[in-house]
Each structure stands twice: as structure tokens, then as C-alpha cells.
């Protein structure tokens, strides 16, 4: 064999270490849980309920994020204005916020004694310790993931596509819908997958803001935590299911983005 020097060997070693470290816990979950345990834990009270709650709440949160976040990201990507950089930083701040801080922040803002607590109460909306509160917490922590990705997807578009659309008689709104969104599609979908993954795994902010009540606010991660002290095998089994669901979601989103149009954003 030809001597390739130490550097390529080093690269391969680094990747191997990373791969082992990142996949070992995931593999361990499945090794530790037998298929029978898995099935029986699903049959258990609350397990399916927690999973269903996780999926519904995260789906609603991601829906809200996409509907409001897409135009917002488009604005940030296509306009230059004063204070834009500061605004982008503010929006990205929740990315680095510890979940517990996010939970406290949400309570301070929208809790009964919070800044806007009175307004929320007058509107007859209950957020704290409710399913709506879960959705709110998930939206808060997951939104920046989508916004960041969507903004860079729109920034990467060839501006002349947008200009051509205008000269061909399309208004700015129509250009956004018919040209910007389809051409930025793959980037938007990968942002959606990131945000959804983050929302599915959300723990801290949900626990602090919405609590952990079975059937109302107890999402899958919270259910895992509850079992962890009393029923380790049950926690493990539920974890395995959550991993499988998340992986399936990520995979289907990736496949979908591949088939949106077989061009790829980068011409």
C-alpha cells in the first residue's frame, strides 16, 4: 500500500472517535431494550399518550413557525435596513439560551404575574400548565432554528430570479410565493426538520412553563424523565420509540426535500 502520510489517518481517526461517541448512547438504548419491552412499554398507561402529545404539539408549533417565520425570514434576507444585524442577533438569542432560562423567561412574560400575564388572562387564555403552554414553549425554543435556516436559504437565491419575476408582471407577493419559496424549498425544509427535531426533544422550558401532567402537558421527554427514577426499563423503551420516531421524521423530511424539485438550490 502507498504511504499516504499521517494527516489522512488523523482525519479518519477523528471521524471515528466522533462517530463512536455520538452513536454509542443511541445504540445502547436499542441494545438494552428488547423488542418485547418496547411493545409492553407502549401498552403502558400514558406512554402512547405522551408520544401523541409530543407529535401534535410539535407539529402545531412547527406549523406556526413556518407560517409566521417564512415571510419574516424573507424580509430579513431581502432588505437592508438600519439595525438589521442587531435584529438578527436578537432572534438568534434563544438558540444559546439554556432551556431552564427560556422557561423562566416565558413565565416572567406570560405567567399569571408576568409582564403580559394580565393581557393573556383578560383574553381568557390559559397558558401555564396547559397544552397551549406546551405549544408556546416548543415554538419559542424551535423558532430560531427555522428562521436562521430560512434566512440563509433566501439569501442564497439568485436575485435576478426575483427581479425577472417582477418584470414578468408578478407582484412582490406573487414573486415570494411562486419563485422565492419553491427555489428556496430545500433550505426551508431542512430548517423545518431542524426545528421539528428541537421541538420533539424539548424538555426544560416545557417542564418549567407547562409542567408535567399526564395527558395534558407531559410530552415524551417529560414522560421519560418521570419514569427514569422508578422504571428504568420503561424509560429506556420510551426513549427507543422517541429515537425511532425522530429518525423517521428526519428521514422523510429529507426525502421530501429531495423530491420537491430535483434541481438543488445551487443551480
Amino acid at each position, binding site marked *: 500500500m502507498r504511504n499516504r502520510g499521517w494527516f489522512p489517518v488523523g482525519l479518519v481517526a477523528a471521524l471515528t472517535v466522533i462517530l463512536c461517541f455520538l452513536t454509542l448512547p443511541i445504540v445502547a438504548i436499542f441494545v438494552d431494550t428488547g423488542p418485547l419491552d418496547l411493545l409492553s412499554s407502549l401498552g403502558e398507561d400514558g406512554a402512547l399518550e405522551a408520544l401523541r402529545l409530543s407529535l401534535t404539539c410539535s407539529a402545531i408549533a412547527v406549523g406556526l413557525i413556518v407560517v409566521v417565520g417564512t415571510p419574516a425570514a424573507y424580509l430579513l434576507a431581502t432588505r437592508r435596513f438600519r439595525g438589521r444585524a442587531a435584529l438578527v442577533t436578537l432572534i438568534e438569542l434563544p438558540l444559546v439560551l439554556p432551556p431552564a432560562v427560556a422557561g423562566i423567561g416565558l413565565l416572567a412574560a406570560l405567567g399569571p404575574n408576568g409582564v403580559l400575564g394580565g393581557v393573556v388572562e383578560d383574553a381568557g387564555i390559559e397558558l401555564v400548565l396547559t397544552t397551549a403552554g406546551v405549544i408556546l414553549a416548543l415554538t419559542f425554543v424551535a423558532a430560531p432554528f427555522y428562521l436562521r435556516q430560512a434566512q440563509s436559504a433566501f439569501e442564497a437565491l*439568485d436575485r*435576478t*430570479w426575483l*427581479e*425577472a*419575476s*417582477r*418584470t*414578468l*408582471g*408578478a*407582484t*412582490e407577493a406573487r414573486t415570494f410565493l*411562486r*419563485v422565492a419559496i*419553491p*427555489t428556496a*424549498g430545500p433550505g426551508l425544509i431542512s430548517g423545518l426538520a431542524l426545528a421539528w427535531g428541537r421541538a420533539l426533544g424539548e424538555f426544560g422550558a416545557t417542564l418549567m412553563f407547562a409542567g408535567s401532567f399526564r395527558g395534558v402537558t407531559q410530552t415524551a421527554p417529560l414522560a421519560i424523565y418521570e419514569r427514569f427514577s422508578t422504571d428504568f426499563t420503561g424509560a429506556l423503551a420510551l426513549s427507543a420509540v422517541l429515537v425511532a420516531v425522530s429518525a423517521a421524521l428526519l428521514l422523510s423530511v429529507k426525502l421530501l426535500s429531495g423530491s420537491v*424539485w*430535483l*434541481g438543488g438550490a445551487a*443551480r
Partner: protein
Amino acid sequence: MLRVEARAQLGAFSLEVALETAPGRCLALAGPSGAGKTSVLRVVAGLVHPEQGRVSCGEELWLDTAAGVDLPPERRRCGYVFQEYALFPHLRAWQNVAYPLRGLARPERRRRALELLERFGVAHLADARPRTLSGGERQRVSVARALARRPAALLLDEPLSALDARTRASAGRALAAVLRETGVPALLVTHDFTEAALLGDRVGVIDGGRVVQEGSAAELAASPASSFVADFTGAVVLTGTARPGTDGLTHVVLDGGGSVSSTDSGDGPVAVSIYPWEISLAPGDALPSGSAQNHLPVEVISVTAVGNRIRVGLAAPQPLSAEITDASVHQLALEPGARAIATWKATATRLVSR
């Protein structure tokens, strides 16, 4: 009639132009990159907003900063052909062309799009995605798309420069025909004077955001207003029909009379280009001598000093120009109306099929 007046400060660069072009006529703005050519098109299309300006097309007023009129791009009926063609990558060729056709049923939109594609000889590519098309094919789809909206004016940004030399001649020929047929005023920008001469009825040389001289290509070549224009105009372009000769040279019968020879090969309609400094002049009654193959009787139309040299505008009867020294002008007593023989080598004669 498309009329454009604009004054704009774009970064460190100022643009100040006033121009107009008639229906069925093409004004070609030619200049080096960074001269502000594209900015003029963007002002007309409404993609940039000058501090002061007025753009009108026929009866329609698109921009008048003094009156507070500034229509958005979608309400100005411009067919804009972008430099890299800007085809939508997620749409098929026919969908690109059908994009501006709104309020019609899908079969009708497809029928119209196919009709336009057919006109440009690319109907067989209707279902192809832009990234699978060659440069020449993209150019045709892009022009078809620009015409789909029945524009009141056509704007073309370097329509041929993204093409390879081989495709350029046929694409240029097709484009010239389109410009004649559509009957709307057209504004074309290019960095290539030869392209401007072939496609534009008139040529404006633009430099530093200003049109420094405007006229027919022949006028600009024959009497450039500055040494910049003289350098920029470069080669003289004559049109004619080529036929391979038995002596290894190609013989070109010029439109309007006269014939020249070239070492380039060619057959059929061609553009003949010669640099003015390759052409020498001899008195009208002198017998041709020396190794030069081409001798054309000409009439002197203009004598213009450009720096330390003289541009002599000639009619052969196609317009032609020669660049010679001041001393020669005096020696030959060249003045408008004088007759002379223009002489140059077959090796200095370039042919481009038309």
C-alpha cells in the same frame, strides 16, 4: 417611443443619461463594464429608483420623479432579458415562458408557450429544466419568456455574451430578426461594439455613467468624438456574402457593391471586420501595388482628429473608416468629397458568419 431620462447616484458612481428609441428600432448602449449600462436598463424596468428621472413608453408614463410617479416593475410592460437569462430553475422551459401568462387555463397557457418556443426553434425543449439547456437554448427560452407578456419595450442585457463564439453568430441573427419583427422600442446593452453594430440601429457609447456619443455604428467609427470612442469602436464592420475562392482565399461580395478577400473561411452571409489602422489610403488614380489584396474605391466623408491620429470616414459605399497620420492627410489632400483607394491585406480581414 421609449424615452428615458435619469440622474442617479449609485454608490460612488453617478449616472446621467437621456435617450430615446423608436418602435421597431434598437438602441444599443455599448461601453466597458462598470460604465452604467445595466443601470440604465434597471431604471427603465423599475428595479432601481433614480433621484431624478422620467421614463415614458408611448402614452404610458412609468416614472416621473417630479410628478411623484413611480410604477412598480410588474406594471411597466418591459420584456427584460437578463444577462445570465435568469430562467426559473424550478420550472420547465414552457412553464418559464408561461409564467407571465396569467388568468388562462393551463392547456391554453401551454399552447401559447409552445407557440413562442416554436418561433425560436426550441419547442422540442418545452419540458426540459433550465439547468439541462445549453447557453444558446437558455437565451432563446429567455427571449421567448420576455415576449410572452407582449411587452411595450424590450430590454436586453448582454444577450449574446454568455454564449460561445459558435452559437453567438446564429443567436445574434435570430435576435436581430426578433427585434425587427416585434415592432417595439428596444434598448440593448453590450460591452462589445461589434455586437452593438450588428444589433443596434443606433449605438450610444456609454462611459462613466454618461452617453459620450450616439449615432450609427458607422458614424461612430468614422468620426469618434474622443479617443475613448475611437478605441472602443475598434473594428469597422461591413456586411456581404462570402464564397470560397479557388485561390485559397474567401471572396466576399459586399452589400451595396465592391468585393474583398479574406484568409478566413466563410460561406453565405458574413460580417467583415477590419481595424481602421490596418487600412491605408492611396490617391484615387493610383494603381494598386504591393502585397495587399483588397482595394476598394472610396469617397471621403469626414476627417476627424483623434489624439495624434486622424480618423477618415469613408463611403465604399458601405461606411468604412481608416486611421492615418496627419502628414498623410495633407500629402493626399484628403477632404470630404475627395476620392481615394482604401487598401488592406486579406490577412487583416476577419469574417464572422451572420
